[in-house]
């Protein structure tokens, strides 16, 4: 299973939406489009922003449907990161 280490791309404060978009289009979507599972590893990431998480996963959920969340594992998330991911996955599915 492929693992994307967010810290390696975005640092301890993952906020750069350009980085998030690149991760989505070059690593996340191609893998999920093949029907494969993926791990988003937040080890070393202290915090993030709603905008970063939105740019990383909202389009993936909209394009591939809510079921895609069964194939994405969020690993080593701090409480803050978990809560922000929860906000984004909720509103994307509510607004779908």
């Amino acid at each position, binding site marked *: 299973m492929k693992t994307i280490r967010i810290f390696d791309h975005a640092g301890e404060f993952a906020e750069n939406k350009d980085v998030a978009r690149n991760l989505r289009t070059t690593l996340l979507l191609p893998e999920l489009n093949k029907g494969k599972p993926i791990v988003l590893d937040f080890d070393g990431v202290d915090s993030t922003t709603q905008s970063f998480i939105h740019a990383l996963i909202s389009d993936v959920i909209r394009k591939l449907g809510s079921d895609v969340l069964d194939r994405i594992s969020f690993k080593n998330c701090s409480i*803050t990161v978990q809560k922000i991911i929860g906000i984004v996955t909720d*509103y994307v599915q509510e607004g779908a």
Partner: protein
Amino acid sequence: MKIHLPNSAHLGNIDAFFKRIDTKNPNALSISANKKWISVHPIVLSMIAAYGAKVRPHISCEAMTAKSAPYIVRMGLFDSLGIDCGIEVNEHESAGRFIPVTQIKTSDQLSDFLNEMVPLLHLAPEQARPIKYIVSELTRNVLEHASAPHGAFLTAQYFKKSNRIAVGIADTGVGIRKSINASHATGSDLEAIRLALTPGITGTTRREGGTEQNAGAGLFFIKSIANVTRDFFVIYSGSAMFKLLKRSTNKIRLHVDPFEDRHSVDSDLPKWPGTVVGIDISLEQTAEFNVLLDHIRDTYDQAIRERKKAKYRKPKFI
């Protein structure tokens, strides 16, 4: 434009400072100041720097005699404007904890700045989290939505007496109304500000939840942080201003509609060509950041459900 640095201009009384801005000559910047004492929120310095970048080199500044004038120098205002104010600064004097006027024009500059910012303000990690969050989201708003050729101007200051960080960000871009109007027709600057503060509303699309890059949640998050930490939050664009007032009760309650928060507005201010945001963050309250996120989740869900419900077709009973 004429801007006067008054005796006192902080978010609680910032309205008077805004009202006094003279916009008659938009092609030059003229700065004057109180003769005895100047105490201003970073929002004031960010505004002056942003406007100065727009009209440079047509900038003039009257001689400053206030005892606190060296503070303005140390905050980097005159360096940013490229003018010599003639004020001598004792370099050995404590400069306190602050971020001088900083211009940010690119996404990578912002990321670098966020790394450098925390040591400058001497923040513990739990205190740094909401401050970095606010600076990132506000500045990215400018870079993505303002079409501001000079980017964002940011200034921050720690106030020891009240144990708070004050942050001010200004730009001279298109302003909130033009940005929001790209997807939502609004009749006034104030209405545009109201929409911009509503979760799920963005100028990039009419679609619920935004686009793949924008959700329309950034300003709502920031207003919510100020609400939870019982601090002021001010947003001024065009001729309108919204000010979140300090929460008067212990109960935390976030509202989808900013006009349901404890607030004040003014829709008849001198027209600011762009957007200005000021916020105070109490460092004693920052541990509540994770609690805040729970409140935001509930309020955001409620907002989407209510808007979806408003679009439901109603049964026709005859």
